[in-house]
């Protein structure tokens, strides 16, 4: 077990880490630069570009919108996706095979097409407000991930424990919460994280669905870099990164803890 690692393997692993971490280090580095233009390594250290974010109303507003949309869309997708994944796995034998494929189809449609068609049909066609359309778009965008990830953890779930619970006097609807959900908890957390990140980073769908007064942070960043080249972009990215990590941590803790204290 304690055989020596080949030096080549170590070198390869280090390269992979550099490749993965490099962009993050460069972004974090540039965000701390004291210059008025993006540069790496940073020249002088300063937090002024972080302060600058909060002086710019557009960034503040879009950041709030992004988090609202990502949280709500993820929650909606889970509310639809958990029962869907449950049904697809529980009744796998009875259901036709193409049904589970149906739930991943949105992944196959280019996001930009999804955005454009929602603009045409929902926003312009049905006349829904911008925020609602954005929410629908992102729910559709992240739903396949939720169904896939939760299905994966349900695939190894032994449904006979559900029958065991029922035979012990637990009503079926309650059994779902006391026995099924706690055992796919890790899948739900993974689905939440994946869906949240997908939504908060989305450009292609939001590009069509954002409108007057309402925009998401990635769209605002895009708008900003078209005119300016200052380190505020880097600091916004860093802030977004840390806020996302914070949300993940909160989800992990709360979902984990509520089920553990059951």
């Amino acid at each position, binding site marked *: 077990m304690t055989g020596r690692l080949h030096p080549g393997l170590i070198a390869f692993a280090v390269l992979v880490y550099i490749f993965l971490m490099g962009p993050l280090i460069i972004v974090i580095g540039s965000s701390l630069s004291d210059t008025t233009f993006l540069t790496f390594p940073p020249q002088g250290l300063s937090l002024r570009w972080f302060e600058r974010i909060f002086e710019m109303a557009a960034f503040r507003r879009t950041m709030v919108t992004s988090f609202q949309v990502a949280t709500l869309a993820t929650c909606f997708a889970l509310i639809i996706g958990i029962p869907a994944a449950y049904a697809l796995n529980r009744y796998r034998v009875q259901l036709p095979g193409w049904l589970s494929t149906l739930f991943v189809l949105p992944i196959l449609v280019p996001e930009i097409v999804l955005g454009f068609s929602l603009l045409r049909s929902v926003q312009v066609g049905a006349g829904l407000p911008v925020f609602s359309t954005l929410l629908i778009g992102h729910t559709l965008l992240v739903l396949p991930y939720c169904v896939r990830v939760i299905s994966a953890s349900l695939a190894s779930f032994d449904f006979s424990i559900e029958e*065991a619970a029922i035979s*012990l006097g637990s009503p079926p609807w309650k059994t779902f919460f006391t026995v099924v959900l706690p055992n796919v908890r890790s899948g739900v957390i993974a689905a939440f994280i994946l869906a949240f990140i997908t939504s908060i980073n989305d450009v292609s769908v939001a590009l069509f669905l954002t409108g007057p007064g309402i925009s998401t942070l990635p769209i605002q960043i895009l708008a900003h870099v078209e005119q300016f080249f200052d380190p505020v972009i880097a600091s916004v990215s860093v802030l977004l990164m840390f806020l996302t990590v914070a949300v993940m941590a909160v989800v992990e803790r709360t979902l984990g803890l509520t089920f553990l204290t059951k």
Partner: protein
Amino acid sequence: MAAPLSLEHLTAHYGTTKVLDDLSLDVGAGELVSLLGASGCGKTTTLRLTAGFLAPTAGAIRLGDTDLTRLPAHRRNIGLVFQNYALFPHLSVLDNVAFGLKQRGMGSAERTRKADDMLQRVGLADLAERLPGELSGGQRQRVALARALVIEPQLLMFDEPLSNLDAKLRVDMRVEIRQLQRANGTTSVFVTHDQEEAFSISDRVAIMDAGRIRQFDTPEVLYQRPSNAFVARFVGFENLIPLTSATRQGSIVHAKGDGGISVVLDQEQLGAVPDRFTLATRPDGLRVSPDADAEGIPSTLGLRTYLGRAYHYQAETPAGHLVAAGPLSRPLDIGATARLVPELEQCCILPAEEAP
């Protein structure tokens, strides 16, 4: 606590396939009855109907004074022990056992005490805080048993509970199950495909085939007096010989069959012998006699196998392929002609078999 279970004319379908056909079964209060049969015979369907996971297309299920037929599964008060244990992986052993008590609204202190007591009884008190994943197969099965017993069910049902255990443990566990069931006096239904298991553990056994019960009786009667050809084959009566009674003299019946088969039967030993019937024996109940002129079944011997206490011969006869036994002192060779003589104390009379 013990209540009799009564299944009345149950019929069940999966889609358009009929899986249970007008099945009736009465299990006495405190009795342990096994449903025995090959896979697909309807034994598990019967269990699932009784548990409430399936609905019958016709018929009724009664437990004591309660009509269960339309009662939802979670209100039936039936303890279930599953083949794969079906323990809750996210709960400790203690919480697994206390689960049913919690559903019944029992307070935390009392259910812990009761679950602890039950774990003590199955010898797992030390493991109360473990998760099921940390237990061996036998321990898991004990937890499953404790979980089903602690709710003091009116009926206990086992779905092939021992088939995932190794041979030695299987024998130990079935003794343990029987002892616990006896001590509690809980009416029980045990589903298995293992004949030895069913016979050793049960008060009565229902042998099932194609959605029907072919015979329902004590293991002793089933083993010695099967009432039809299916059950006879199932319990090892390999030789089924169709015969017709020729002459009767007091209790003695001379019976004849195809190709010069001629046997003498005694109704005092075999019970009433009808005019047309099938004589059934195990290999040891059919003796090979080298005397080619004696009464019996003319045969040509085939392969001889050594079984310690006797030789078994594969024999070709006018009644088809039979297996007979011969003494170790006089082995006979392949191709020898011999008579096969039934040992009456090891034979039974079955109704004439319908053409299959």
